[in-house]
Each structure stands twice: as C-alpha cells, then as structure tokens.
C-alpha cells in the first residue's frame, strides 16, 4: 500500500478510507517511499523537534544578535512583558508569537534551526506547536505527530505550488509555514482531517498576496515579524476551523490561487530586495550601512 497522495482532496480520501489521521497517512507514505521503519522516521523527526526546542529557548532567554546587527532580542522583550503583565492578546498567543520570533532571531544569528519549510519561515511551526503542546500538556511524541501532519500540508504545497519566497513571495513562504502549523494544531486538538485542511486554507487566504521584500536581501527584517504574524494567523485559523468554520474555497484551489498570485508578482517583490520595504528610504539606507555602496 503506497498511501501516495498528490493534493489535499486525495489525502482526505485516504484518511477516510483507512480511518486514519493525516499524520498517520503521511507516515505510511514516508515509510513506503523511503523504505524505512516508521519508528526510525519518528525518531528522526523527534531529533528535529529537539533542535526546534533549543532554538526557541535560546531566542527567548539569551541575547541573540544577527550578523548584520539588524535584528535580535525582540522575542526576549516580548517574553519579559507576557511573563510580568496582562497582555492584549493573552499569554498563550504572546508566547507562541515570541517563540516564533525567537527561532527566526536564532536563525539570523547563525544558530541551529530546522527549515520548516524554509529557513526564513522556520519560526512559525515550532513557536506555535511547542506553546500549544505546553498549554495542553502534550508529550513530545504527540508534538512529533503534529510535525508530521505539518509536513503533509507542506509537501502538498511544495508539490503543487511553491514554498520559496523567490518564486511565490512571502505568502508562499511564511504562508505555507502557517498553513502547515494550523493543520497540525487542529489535528492535535482532535479536529478531523477536513477541519485541518480548512484551517490550512483559511491561513493562506489571510495572507494571499504578501510580498517578499527583505531589507538588504537578508533573512532578518521583516522576516522575524512576519513569522510573528504567521504564528498568530495559524492559531486564529485553527480556532475558526475547530469551531466548525469552513473555508469556502477548498484547500487545493487556495494553493493553486496562491501559486498564480505568486507568479503574477513582479520580480521586485520576490526576494530580490528591489521593492517593498527593501526599497524604502530607510530600507536602502540600512542596505548601504551593511554592504557599503557597492550593491546596486
């Protein structure tokens, strides 16, 4: 049994047919294509989870600074606030957002991370998943299931569209990360595969058209904050889906739309640092400060 699927519809069909959750179908598929035991695959994913945990911890508690000096320390700032006072969006939301920022800050400071699905969007999944696991007292084994669910969504987006900012803008990159995350936490909270895909679809719809415009071309700003908002987006979209709210446009069509929007974006807005925030007076000044005048 290959458990191969090419899109969301086929994945949901397999879940129904075998009475399995998304993570179980994805694990069967991985075992089939790699020839590896399921336990071996889960163990490797557990290793990824541990790296994610250390990155979150490092960013929340240590002084991190990026190579260019542009970002670092904001996750810690947020943690100090939510730990000491009431916040507008609450402890859990703030913690998830701060954790997502923490990973991106560690990434920018040349620390170790796990691309999820890319380095520039690597904060959203660990940030949200680990905060949710902590809040609901879920074990690491449960969190690994969440990572596998997330990988199924990411695989479908990679296969049918793109997760690269250079190709599809930030909507493709942090959008995919947030969609993966939303589906993972819906499934962990007992939601159905359909609900998980609704959450993923809603997440991408929320940021459709988001451009990739990194200042000086570096994976720093606005990437750290886009990971923050991606985390919030995933949490809200998951809550909507768990309440029974459905995406009017099915997941597969949303992914297709996202891809088409990405292709319609001018190259200035796809990771080239020639448009958007990168091309503002301040963005250009920062670029000059970091690289000097040689960069045209």
């Amino acid at each position: 049994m290959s458990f191969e699927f090419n899109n969301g519809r086929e994945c949901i069909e397999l879940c129904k047919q075998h009475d399995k959750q998304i993570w179980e179908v994805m694990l069967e598929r991985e075992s089939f294509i790699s020839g590896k035991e399921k336990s071996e695959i889960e163990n490797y994913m557990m290793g990824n989870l541990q790296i994610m945990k250390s990155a979150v911890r490092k960013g929340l508690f240590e002084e991190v600074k990026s190579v260019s000096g542009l970002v670092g320390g904001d996750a810690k700032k947020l943690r100090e606030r939510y730990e000491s006072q009431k916040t507008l969006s609450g402890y859990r939301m703030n913690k998830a957002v701060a954790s997502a920022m923490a990973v991106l800050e560690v990434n920018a400071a040349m620390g170790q991370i796990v691309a999820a699905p890319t380095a520039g969007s690597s904060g959203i999944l660990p940030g949200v998943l680990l905060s949710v696991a902590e809040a609901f007292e879920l074990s690491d084994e449960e969190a690994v299931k969440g990572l596998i669910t997330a990988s199924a969504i990411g695989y479908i987006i990679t296969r049918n569209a793109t997760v690269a900012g250079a190709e599809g803008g930030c909507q493709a990159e942090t959008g995919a990360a947030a969609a993966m995350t939303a589906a993972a936490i819906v499934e962990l909270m007992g939601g159905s595969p359909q609900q998980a895909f609704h959450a993923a679809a809603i997440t991408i719809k929320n940021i459709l058209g988001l451009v990739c415009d990194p200042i000086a071309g570096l994976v720093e700003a606005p990437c750290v904050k886009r990971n923050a908002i991606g985390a919030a987006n995933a949490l809200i979209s998951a809550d909507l889906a768990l309440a029974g709210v459905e995406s009017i446009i099915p997941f597969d069509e949303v992914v297709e739309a996202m891809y088409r929007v990405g292709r319609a974006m001018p190259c200035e807005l796809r990771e080239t640092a020639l448009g958007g925030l990168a091309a503002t007076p301040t963005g250009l000044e920062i670029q000059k400060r970091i690289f000097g005048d040689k960069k045209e």
Partner: protein
Amino acid sequence: MKNYSMFDVIGPRMIGPSSSHTAGAARLSKAARKIGGEEIKQVSFYLHGSFAKTYKGHGTDRALVAGILGMEPNDENLRYAMEIALEKGIEFEFIEADLGDVHPNTVKIIMKGISGKTTEVIGSSVGGGNIRVFKINGLDVEFTGEYPTLLVRHIDKPGAIAKISLILSEYGINIAFMRVFRQSKGKDAFMIIETDNKINEEVIDKTKALGEDFISVYLIDAL
C-alpha cells in the same frame, strides 16, 4: 517529478540564516574539499552574483570556510569557522567576480592542498540547501549531491565504466544516474555516479585499486 520526503519539508537541520546562502554554500565547499582529496592549506573563493553582493550579511563567507574545514551545514561551530581556520593556519580570501552566465549563487573555489596540488571547483547553490557542481579543474561535470555520489577521475578507455559498475553491483548498490565527461578521446575523464544506496569505504578502496587509469575517487555524501 521528485518524490518529496517529509524531511524535505521539515528540514534540513541547518545553521541560519539562509538555506541557499549559508547551508548550500557550506555543502558546496565541503564537496570541493572532498574533490581536493586532502587537507587544504590555502583557498580562494570567487563569489558571483548574489553571493558576491550579500555574502557578508548571510554568513556565506563563514559557511564556505566551514565546508573547507569539513563541517556539516548544521555544525554549531560554523559561525566560528574563520577563526578556526586561522588557528589552523589555513589561508583564505574572498574575491568578487563575474563568472559569466551562471546561477546567481555561484562560487569558484581554488584550493591548494598540503601536497601543493591545486584543485578548482565551480558550483551553484540552487535553493533549499541543494547544490549543483558543474566544473572540476576546468572539466565540465554535473552533479547535485542529492544522492550519494561517486566521482571517478580516470583515463577515457574502453572497459572503464564496466569495471566500476561491476564493483557497485557486487555491493548491491543501485545506480540512479550516471554520466561520463571527458576532455577529449583517450584523455582525462570524469565518471559521475549517483546511487540509491550508501557507498561504503570498501567500494572506494576497490575502485582506487583498479589501476593507474583510475586517477582518483571521491565520495560526496547525500544531504
């Protein structure tokens, strides 16, 4: 179409900030070091395109030196690679260069080993930490490092390919892709074999023992 693994999505494990500018750069120079085949004493990196423009901010320079030291892209010491290289007395330099009509993230690596031998490798970091090496010592080649890759430098003679494939079949290693590149008939050539299975040291040793027509053998591990 590539059959994506879940670890293509949640992965690779890497040192930030960029899979193409950091992880891919480290893999490129690690592959180059393997091709050099010995400890490196001096290395020059000719940076092209986006590599040339943004290498400092992305830590591409540190990643390239880390690869020369043999570090993996997820080695926590990657950010200290330049200091470690200096301590070991390894000289390195970065030169911005126009390498022609190539991928924006391309580097030419010229290495001098402890034996005095010079090796030149050109490759690109093509995204997601994936690489493409396309020139070794001026000879056109092509491999991605996505699979375990065996590089055999040999003299272009009848039977050379059969000898290598016989060894691989003895060890139950399946060849996924294989290409042969040569300068001209009967001269210096490269065989590039990408496999589905891991290649062990015994295979390398047997290949090396095939005789003087087989000049050198290198193994590049998969990502």
